């Protein structure tokens, strides 16, 4: 059998030591009428080459966006993954280790998390970051619960520009907590309608969520309303795109109390949407209210620098139902990838990457804007993603483009119904070039 290694001699020796005739006796406490006499109804095992063949065939039945000309975004992006990131993340020392509960033999994982926390803290300009969450959606849901716990209030305001998939998960977590979710509309420019937001700020509001850039790509100006949010006694929760923080003002600089985001673009593959990497950062004041694992620098008994998991009394294995969350794992290996990614790009490479995405997105936006029957839905500033208005249904446009081998983007009717049926969400990364843009334009508005 694969991966087990007892010889018949070993087996007999062990059975003898236990004074039993066969392994069956080990399962004697299972009611006999429910013991499986036959094998499970599944196929017999395959050899490794047979297995690879089967999965190669399955893989060949897909048409991966990464190998096509694709403008799909909406939370998962096709950025270049440096070879060194894959190499480090595939090391068994990181991949096959458990949670670093035994600090003495886990300093590698612990220091990586410490550097991850530092990277996230610097990107967000918030002093505290945890060791990661499942994805942005669950990170946001946890942030919303945290805001309600901290303020002891029960309303949270969500902008109309929130990723609809994140909104759905937030709803799931809030149903059990009697937290009311209210929507804040957008202005004509596509950012949050600040006047409407102010109208909704009352003493029931625990938190205000701001996604910037929003799902429709528009960059917010939260500094114009962050004081109002705080004056109302609410927390300001930022949903960020870490790639955008290469060039854009960080949440900490405009008063966010908690920042979450999707860090898949930091060295993660798209993987059909998982595993992803949720990040979470917050102010010093909130550190003991934050869910998830946290690593601290400390010293060992000889006075040497060392790292260790800390503030575990917040966590479920100690606090049980009084814990700040039920989360038990982090996305360790994904966080390792993000850490190596940011170290490898460094200050220079990361800022250049952000600039490149911005420039490329604006180049494409200008090309599309010039097409007959196409335009930009919002005039607000954007980073690397924007909404195109089409001259016909966006889903038809997407289907036609697919025939030409171009994945044009996400038709917004998928989430927002017929009122946005002509709108298409288009994302650009540093991997695109002008030829890709020409292919998209040609697919949108075929010549002749």
């Amino acid at each position, binding site marked *: 059998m694969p991966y*087990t*290694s007892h010889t018949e001699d070993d087996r007999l020796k062990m059975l003898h030591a236990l004074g039993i005739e066969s392994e069956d006796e080990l*399962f004697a406490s299972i009611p006999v009428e429910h*013991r499986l006499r036959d094998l*499970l109804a*599944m196929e*017999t*095992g*395959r050899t490794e080459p047979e297995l690879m063949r089967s999965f190669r065939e*399955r893989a060949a039945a*897909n048409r*991966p966006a990464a190998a096509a000309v694709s403008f*799909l975004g*909406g939370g*998962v992006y096709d950025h270049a993954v440096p070879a*060194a990131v894959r190499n480090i993340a595939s*090391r*068994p020392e990181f*991949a096959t*280790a458990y949670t*670093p509960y035994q*600090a*003495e*033999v886990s*300093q*590698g994982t612990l*220091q990586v998390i*410490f*550097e991850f926390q*530092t990277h996230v803290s*610097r990107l967000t300009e918030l002093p*505290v970051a945890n*060791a*990661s969450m*499942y994805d942005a959606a*669950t990170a946001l849901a946890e942030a919303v619960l945290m805001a309600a716990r901290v303020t002891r209030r029960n309303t949270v305001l969500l902008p109309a520009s929130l990723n609809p998939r994140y909104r*759905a998960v937030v709803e799931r977590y809030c149903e*059990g907590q009697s937290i009311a979710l209210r929507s804040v509309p957008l202005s004509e420019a596509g950012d949050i309608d600040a006047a409407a937001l102010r109208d909704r700020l009352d003493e029931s509001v625990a938190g205000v969520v701001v996604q910037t850039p929003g799902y429709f790509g528009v960059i917010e100006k939260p500094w114009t309303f962050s004081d109002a949010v705080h004056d109302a006694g609410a927390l300001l929760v930022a949903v960020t795109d870490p790639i955008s923080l290469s*060039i854009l003002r960080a949440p900490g*600089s405009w008063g966010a109390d908690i920042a979450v985001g999707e860090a898949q673009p930091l060295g993660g593959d798209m*993987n*059909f949407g*998982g*595993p992803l990497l949720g990040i979470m950062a917050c102010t010093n004041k909130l550190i003991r209210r934050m869910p998830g*694992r946290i690593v601290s620098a400390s010293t060992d008994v000889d006075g*040497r*620098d060392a790292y260790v998991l800390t503030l575990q009394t917040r966590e479920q*294995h100690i606090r049980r139902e009084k814990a700040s969350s039920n989360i*038990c*794992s982090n*996305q*360790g290996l994904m966080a*390792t990838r993000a850490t*190596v990614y940011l*170290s*490898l790009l*460094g200050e220079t490479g990361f800022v250049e990457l*952000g*600039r490149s995405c911005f420039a490329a997105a604006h180049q494409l936006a200008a090309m599309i804007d010039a097409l007959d029957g196409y335009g930009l839905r919002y005039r607000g*500033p954007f980073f690397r993603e924007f909404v195109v208005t089409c001259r016909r249904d966006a889903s038809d446009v997407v289907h036609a483009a697919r025939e030409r081998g171009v994945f044009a983007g996400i038709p917004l009717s998928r989430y927002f119904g017929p009122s946005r049926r002509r709108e298409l969400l288009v994302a650009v990364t540093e991997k695109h070039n002008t030829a890709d843009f020409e292919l998209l334009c040609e697919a949108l508005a075929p010549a002749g």
Partner: protein
Amino acid sequence: MPDTIYKKSRPGRHGFRVAPDAPKPDLPDEFLRDGPIGLPEVTEPQVMRHYVELSTLNHHVDKDLYPLGSCTMKYNPKVNEEVAALAGFSGLHPEQDERDVQGALGVIHDLEDQLAVVSGMDAVTLQPAAGAHGELTGLIVARAYFGNRGEPGRTRVLIPDSAHGTNPASAKIAGLEPETIHSGADGRIDVAALRERLDNDVAVLMLTVPNTLGLFEDRITEITAAVHKVGGLCYMDGTNMNALMGQVRPGDLGFDVMHFNLHKTFSTPHGGGGPGSGPVAVKSHLEPFLPGPRVQRAGDGFRFAPQSVLRVGPVHSFFGNFGIYLRALAYIMRLGADGIRHASQVACLNANYLARRLGDEYPIPYGQRCMHEFVASGDRFREYGVRTLDIAKRLLDYGFHAPTMYFPLVVQEAIMVEPTETETLETLDRFADTMLDIAREAREHPERLTLAPTRTPVRRVDETMANRHPVITAPGREST
């Protein structure tokens, strides 16, 4: 410890660059960062050496035994990594057209199918990203079920004291009320006491099977029948499925809902803490409430089923940790029906063998016959000033990882050992010999334990200082 990557930074060094000529963005200043981020400036060779050096400081399964109870640290087959790295999977975007992701939908469908076969359940969602996330999802499904039956007042969730702490925490987030039930003298559920707690407000009984003592609830069908009689549901925490697969199906025992841990039972790597995957399997009466989107067969292929009104919405941004499904499905297909049954057999054989070899020195309060793991006690060494923590730390000196400690709480100075099926007899004997040596040391040279470890990259780390004054980021940007 090695310096942080920040200390290795020197202005002017570059690693990975894609766009050296990218222009400064044309945006008003108010939108832009007003200073550097503070990321390091290092070269690719430096980055490689830095993280390779860090990696050497870790214990990991590919190095030696990792006997953590309830964590199932089995070998992670390398072919699974090759499967998951195939560009036809890793390059898929979750918003792609269904026609372009048929292979991926087939993987989801087939893995759901295989997990249903293993569990004896009727339907599976793979969406939850971890075991605790699976618990939460299963309980949200249960709540939706009772809501739909017009019984929103059913909120009590009964959980044994030996359960993992995520159980009560998950119940709380699901909007239910966790309550502790105490284990009986034999380490199992006290069925009579349980019956007294059952009434029409009980939503769910949440059991770990086998429990964290490594014991199978031998009166399980009596227990599940009693819960069903008052209209409640039975949830099985599948963290210990490695003891059961191919031997018995939770669905046959009266469970309505359970979760798996693919990173335990189905050999996907733990990654230093994740990503995991916590699929939820249910009986047909709960299927209508499983979170969407659901994959279904359509002709020769697959599609996402239309959303139905009863379903609870998604619990993940997309479809969960797809990359983990590939590894788990590859594992199941590699083992096949016979390999799966063999794996649980050997897991239990290994655990019982170790229990037998250690039992004289480390008493096992709840009997000598266990399933895939057992809980011994280090209590007798207290008279030498030695605690279980010290025994665990001494194991690190001998190159082993420590077992799970001080859990479950019903055993004094608990030492919870799960060897898994992938260890050789030589390794088991080496571990047992070492444990017996440590017992001798505890009597003759207790300081070797209380001062341990001494051969590890660092020695015991000051947790108290870290708790009082947590330092969770490297010194400020100005000092890089």
